[in-house]
């Protein structure tokens, strides 16, 4: 499993297990919207999701990176997280 796929799986685990939502892991596809037209996450859930992502992936989502489109789906988030983690890696 490559980095992106692993991140997607971890994001799906957070959504199904850590946010107190009644969502089955198999219902979370890579491109399903996280909002009302998909998984139905409300603002409070998104806030909790952001906090979990920062904690579990060890990253900080900067103020100027916060956008509705970043949290569009698992695809967009996974790409962002992998990029962010690469930037955080110490230079070899």
């Amino acid at each position: 499993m490559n980095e992106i796929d692993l991140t997607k799986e971890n994001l799906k685990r957070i959504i199904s297990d850590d946010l107190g939502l009644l969502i089955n892991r198999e219902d979370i596809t890579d491109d399903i919207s996280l909002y009302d037209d998909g998984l139905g996450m409300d603002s409070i859930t998104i806030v909790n999701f952001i906090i979990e992502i920062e904690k579990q992936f060890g990253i900080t989502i900067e103020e100027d990176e916060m956008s509705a489109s970043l949290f569009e789906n698992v695809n967009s988030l996974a790409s962002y997280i992998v990029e962010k983690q690469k930037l955080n890696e110490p230079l070899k």
Partner: protein
Amino acid sequence: MITELFKSYLQLSSSNIISDEVESIRYKDIPDLFSIIDRSYDVGKLNGCMALMGSNKISFTVFLLYLLANEKSFYVSSSYSVNGQIPSFCSHTITIPEKNHHVASKNHHEVIIEPSSDLKLRELSAGKPRSVYFATSGSTGDKKIIRYTHDKLLQNAAGCIDRFELSSKCRVLICVPAFHMYGLGAGLLPSLIANAIIKIVDGGNILKIYEQIRKFNPDLLYITPTQAKMLIRLGKDLGKRRFICAGEKISPQDYIQFEERYGLLINLYGSSELGAVATTMPAHTLELRSEGVFVPLKGVEISFSGGGNQGEIRCSHPSGFEEYVDQTGESIPTLAIGKMYSTKDLGSRMGADRFKVIGRTDNILNRSGFLISIEELEISIKNHCKDVAEVIVFEREDEQKIRNELIAVYTKVNDHQEIELSILQACTRNLPTYCRPDRLINLNNLPLTATGKPDRMKIKKIARQL
């Protein structure tokens, strides 16, 4: 036609911009848009009361101003109202499509104006006084319809300008529904009268608020207590700004935390019936502001039932509502106490021109001879038990028992954690015996009213069924 009354409040000549998330217009474009509405819909010829479906969009703002400018009767309806019933005295419904409607691009044919099917009601509607109608949120009782005259509504909005220091230089971001009395009467209309640069966003998505703060760079924001709490929890740095917040009480701890990170928070006390009544004052100490010490707006008088310094807050407002009406537009008689309106809030005087709101009178309980405010108790439980996300407390009447049960319905910050025992322990440690809940009920989510407040009636009903 634009009435002289409207012109005395709104000039519509500024080059400042009003925008939503997809389109923007200048103030001076609005008279041309009025002409388009006249030509396209013949609204000018309609005499009945129109139900205008509310939304945080420019198209709603333009139709609202059109109806105000022509002194038409209209009922401002919440587009996502749970009981979105249109009163039967409305002769027509004006529906603005949800997605990508550009009133400024003249793609206006998408707006749907439908006549009521009942001809008799349409005739009846034409005979009613020219007014603006709102529905109350119904969070603590039955929904009522409130009638304002056009003059009073505009006067009410104009009364907010000085207190909120609104001017044509202000950049105002409205993140609350612009079709309820808070967002409309204290937010959108005063900002329009002041010719401010305005952006209206759908506040249902906290990320959109973040984006707009960055892109639009507002100096004044209208938010709800829930949004304030979410901003605190996220704890990001957005620069210091001014925020206006109305709704349920913000705890002193949250208030202080919010101000430390985001800037000045002005708490607004008001109601659908009276509009803005009082605010916390930037000139006061942080202690006074965080404790919710209010100063009335100009012309507003506050007194307390019984004539003392504590009791139900009574308010005389120079530009309040006219009356309550029922679904057919008939007046609902109310018990008037002189010119004073009974707010159903319990408060106490804190000095010559200051007062504090303790809670709703129907949210005050008599437990073993002690008066307790449910709101204060809820804040206290949350403060002492950080794993509780939201809590609603109420008394369940039980004829079989000597004392009514005190029920606390709560949601958890982390749904997987068992916290009932820790709540009980926290209550035992920190609350007097008469304040401690007899029973705890955990729900995954609390049902909300159309305005986003916890729906206490529904929560009680759910708890009764469990």
